[in-house]
């Protein structure tokens, strides 16, 4: 039996102000996995990752990192993990090389190894030609890559990434994915990632957990989670005149749940999602059934199942990227804002 790289049992975190940020979650991450923690802001992602990287004490449950107890063997854990967050932890007044050397020195690496490793990582992250420029003059994407590299200096077995691409523009985000994928596949580095970007989780993770209100709602590979929906997604929206929408949605559910081709139905505030195999061929039947029942469909879309749909199913809502970025900015607080750690 191989010890899992991360082993979490009934993890609980209650903040001094009474907020129950994490309510009894359990999961395991195996060596070499790219594991994702997907959830909206305030779902408990950051709290969980901070406990795993020994920056925050848990209230209950057990957490083992490479078999080490997170409450008692903190130093041993810190030696084997690497970390990069949404805030870029590089010093702008130092060059890329100096940032890396500094990090390595803090792990008491031997001088020759330190130089070798620095060059190796500069190469790996395509920063070699900018090695002696100040990090402050770097673009957002380069700073991010440098930050990632500093987290890898001591050759960790396990890398924690806390919303690594939040605040990056789409192009830089996609670019960083290439590096993350490379680290996981070529370097066989186990990666634990939190994100609220569906696309990111879908692209990178072998396995992911959807977390909301401090609980794991579902866990599996992106493919598996999408399959569980039961087929293609037919999203239906109804005429928006007052409470009529709710009545119509109810009516639609009643009518369609009897249909043999419907695998599953989810109802949300804005409408319903119908899941069916071979969605294209059943759309006429769906419309006919609804029309017969006198339900007015104003909008219909047919898509193959995406993580967005999985997320919607398990958390009951959908978040758009712009909204996420706005939340992220608010979270950082204004000039007089006190930041919660």
């Amino acid at each position, binding site marked *: 039996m191989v010890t899992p790289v991360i082993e979490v049992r009934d993890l609980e975190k209650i903040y001094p102000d009474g907020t129950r940020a994490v309510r009894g979650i359990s999961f395991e991450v195996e060596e070499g996995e790219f594991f994702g923690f997907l959830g909206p802001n305030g779902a408990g992602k950051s709290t969980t990752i901070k406990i795993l990287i020994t920056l925050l004490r848990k209230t209950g449950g057990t957490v083992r990192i490479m078999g080490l107890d997170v409450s008692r063997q903190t130093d041993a854990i810190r030696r084997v993990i690497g970390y990069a967050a949404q805030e870029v932890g590089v010093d702008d*007044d130092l060059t890329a090389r100096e940032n890396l050397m500094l990090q390595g020195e803090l792990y*008491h690496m031997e001088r020759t190894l330190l130089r070798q490793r620095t060059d190796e990582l500069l190469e790996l992250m395509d920063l070699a030609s900018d090695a002696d420029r100040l990090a402050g003059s770097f673009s957002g994407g380069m700073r991010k890559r440098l930050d990632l590299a500093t987290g890898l200096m001591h*050759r960790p*077995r396990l890398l924690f990434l806390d919303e690594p691409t939040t605040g990056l523009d789409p192009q830089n985000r996609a670019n960083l994915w290439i590096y993350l994928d490379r680290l996981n596949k070529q370097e066989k580095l186990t990666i634990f990632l939190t994100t609220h970007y569906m696309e990111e989780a879908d692209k990178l993770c072998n396995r992911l957990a959807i977390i909301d209100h401090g609980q794991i709602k579902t866990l599996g590979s992106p493919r598996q989670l999408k399959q569980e929906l039961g087929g293609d997604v037919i999203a239906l929206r109804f005429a928006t005149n007052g409470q009529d929408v709710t009545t119509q949605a109810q009516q639609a559910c009643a009518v369609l749940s009897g249909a043999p081709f419907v695998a599953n139905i989810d109802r949300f505030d804005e409408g319903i999602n119908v899941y069916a195999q071979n969605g294209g061929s059943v759309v006429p039947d769906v419309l006919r059934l609804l029309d017969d029942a006198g339900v007015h469909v104003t909008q219909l879309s047919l898509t193959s199942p995406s993580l967005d749909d999985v997320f919607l199913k398990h958390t009951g809502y959908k978040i758009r990227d712009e909204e996420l970025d706005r939340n992220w900015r608010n979270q950082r607080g204004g000039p007089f804002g006190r930041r919660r750690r």
Partner: protein
Amino acid sequence: MRTIAHSKPFPAIFHGWGAFLSETWTLYRRALLKLYRRPVILYFSLVQPMIWLLLFGQIFNRITEAPGFSAAFGGQSYLAFFAPAIILQTILFGAGQSGLGLINDLDTGFLSKLLTTPIHRLAILLGKVLGDLTRMLSQAVIILVVTFVVGLRWVDGSLEPTIMYYYGLPGLLGALGITLLFGLMLAALSVAIALTTRNTEATFLISNFLTFPLIFTSSALLPVELLPDWLRTVSTFNPVTYAINALRVLLYGPTSVPAGSTMGDTILYAVGILLVLTVITLTLGTSRFRRVVG
């Protein structure tokens, strides 16, 4: 591309105290490097004190002829008299920087990153404070040099210093020692304030807000004997008075001993008061720091 797959983390070459010292040294070097890359921090906080030094040194030079002044501060120019006050004013003014640096590390995520490494938590604080003390020391030395140079006069075709350091190098070193103690007290205070408010503006305001009242209610501008009665009373509660008096004694010798005191007492009081205050602010600062790094 070389593969580093499944390799173990690098072995550490330092353990225990060696590790702590090495971590402190690494972070101290970082602080120096930052200072070197942004020398503006060093010079900016020197601009205002320099203007004061040069202007006040001229404006108030005739004060030395006022009755009572030479009894309280024997012989030397107002420039010499004022220089120690300017050193401490610079330290006061620049002390906010210590806290600001920490807030910056907190906001950028640099601190979080440090905390996920297995380094000793206090090495972070120590490395930072040592860096700040180095900055303060260089500022004090710059002011001493400038004062000395400004004090030079042409006498019979050659440059003669008007400022005499009574105890020479040992006196200068002693004065720098007191300056550093004073700086340590303020750096720790600034760290405590910064970590309590977690706010750049607030931290900056406090150091600005403290500087002038503390300078004006001390023996910075005039010997306490020449201050109005109420101000003289206030000045006896102001640690800056004791620090400035000790600096003057160490730099200019027995003639600058305040009335009713002795050489030894002046230095002893300063060191005693500063030590007690430093212990207090250090305790505050480290406990705040421990809470933040949790």
